[in-house]
């Protein structure tokens, strides 16, 4: 970690750097290295045979697609929630605000069971959706719903603090200059929110890709239709084939990491552009 400029005016670089990398190594890097070494023990041939299997491939596809859909839904509604909670005063606001974090506290399995009960054919909501010809449980839609649930807090909670700290004078100035609400939002407010929005989006996406506990209950787990990649990892473990499980996990991890990297890279790029 070498700096390329002497701009470290603020003290504490060594200290924070030390803590960060010590902690990161202990919790993440060492276990991850052990994991990669362990997977490497299986050899290329077997690795490729496992991860390129058609059924495994299909499971990645379903996992990534449903997670993407869920992240988009969470992006839109997370922004809406943050906006409403920061901008408006209304009865029950505190309650709404408090509810947002609950999906994290509920164990994923309980969430899965509760959602399946709701959206199954005889469920409170499922009965209407099924009547409309929408199979809401045991379908990709069901998987997406579960992922929306587990990823819900990410976007709202990332956007909220930034929105709260936005300088009202900029907006007032824009309004004085005759810009309409929509224009003000689009040109003045939204650009400030892109960074937290992307953070929330990528976290929600990543969480969806890896989610197992809640999804298995509502997925139905039919091969080629609703079989997600984490389920295949479990299936491999169940056959005591740790390496094959690790191989699928590794591919999934790299895919998610690549997406996070692109999003983070884009954010850096924006920050730097603004800085200039």
């Amino acid at each position: 970690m070498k700096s390329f400029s002497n701009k470290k005016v603020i003290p504490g670089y060594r200290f924070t750097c030390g803590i960060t990398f010590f902690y990161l190594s202990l919790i993440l890097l060492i276990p991850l290295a052990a994991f990669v070494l362990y997977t490497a023990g299986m050899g290329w041939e077997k690795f490729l045979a496992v991860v390129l299997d058609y059924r495994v491939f299909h499971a990645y596809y379903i996992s990534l697609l449903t997670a993407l859909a869920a992240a988009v839904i969470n992006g839109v509604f997370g922004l809406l929630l943050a906006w409403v909670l920061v901008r408006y005063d209304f009865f029950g606001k505190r309650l709404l605000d408090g509810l947002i974090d609950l999906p994290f506290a509920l164990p994923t399995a309980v969430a899965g069971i509760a959602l399946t009960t709701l959206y199954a054919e005889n469920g409170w909501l499922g009965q209407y959706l099924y009547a409309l010809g929408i199979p809401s449980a045991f379908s990709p839609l069901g998987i997406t719903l579960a992922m929306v649930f587990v990823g819900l807090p990410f976007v709202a909670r990332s956007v909220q603090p930034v929105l709260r700290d936005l300088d009202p004078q900029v907006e007032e100035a824009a309004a004085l200059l005759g810009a309409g609400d929509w224009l003000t939002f689009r040109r003045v407010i939204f650009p400030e929110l892109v960074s937290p929005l992307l953070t929330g989006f990528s976290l929600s996406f990543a969480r969806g890709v890896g989610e197992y506990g809640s999804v298995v209950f509502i997925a139905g787990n039919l091969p080629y239709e609703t079989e997600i990649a984490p389920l295949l990892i479990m299936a491999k473990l169940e056959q005591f084939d740790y390496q094959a499980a690790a191989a699928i996990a590794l591919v999934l991890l790299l895919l998610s990491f690549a997406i996070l990297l692109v999003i983070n890279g884009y954010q850096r790029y924006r920050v730097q552009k603004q800085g200039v």
Partner: protein
Amino acid sequence: MVAVKPHNFRQWGLIGLAAVFLLVMLVLPLILVASEALAKGWQVYLDALNEPFARKALFLTLEATVAAVLGNTVFGLASAWLLTKYDFRGKAFWSSLLDLPFAISPVVAGLLFVILFGRMSPIYPFLRAEHIAIIFAVPGIILATVFVTFPFITRELVPIMEAQGRSEEEAAATMGASGWTIFRRVTLPNIKWALIYGVILCTARALGEFGAVSVVSGHIRGKTNTLPLHIEILYNEYNFTAAFAVASILVILAVVILILRNLVEWRAKRGLRNGN
């Protein structure tokens, strides 16, 4: 940002949309949990909570949560400071690395520690000779909980610290303030809401963590069973009502944390007014 009372149709519309979304995605599943928990009446509900194993599980969950939140707060502050106050090479890479625990399926997260500390690990003979129990004991549960929750605080802090820039800290530094003073006097007041959000998310997630802990716990009743694992066991032995009763405890815990947060917020606001 000052919140206003909604005064036109569009604003009420936005609030309504947000409320409906939360109702369908969040409130209904929670109502379901409550109604299942009380399906057999209060007595059965209280009995389920009074069981000694349930209480031990609750205690273990709290223990792991407190440990995870403490460690992650220190780490979160240090890493957010590092990522926003300095320039260094490969920032996007390190930043993405921080998000990785979200992308790793919880089951795989648990597996990482099993591979690192389990019988197949090269350090296992040493651990056993020294009678150090990590996995299938409390330290493993704490490690797994820390792992799945450690990006939260960093993620909450980075966008806001980025939005605020470095000028205030730099000014303070030029005037000769120490790093600790800058942090306490300049940075902390600006980021306290984000920090509180981060701590709450981290707490909520730590309370509910299931997948990773389930792999490293060993499921020994009264010793290494956390509350979410206890719920799974109850469910698996066809004790639907008790499972949901115990799940409702987690929801109540999350609500308690929110009330605490609101209390802090209220005191802080009052303090501010008095100061003025």
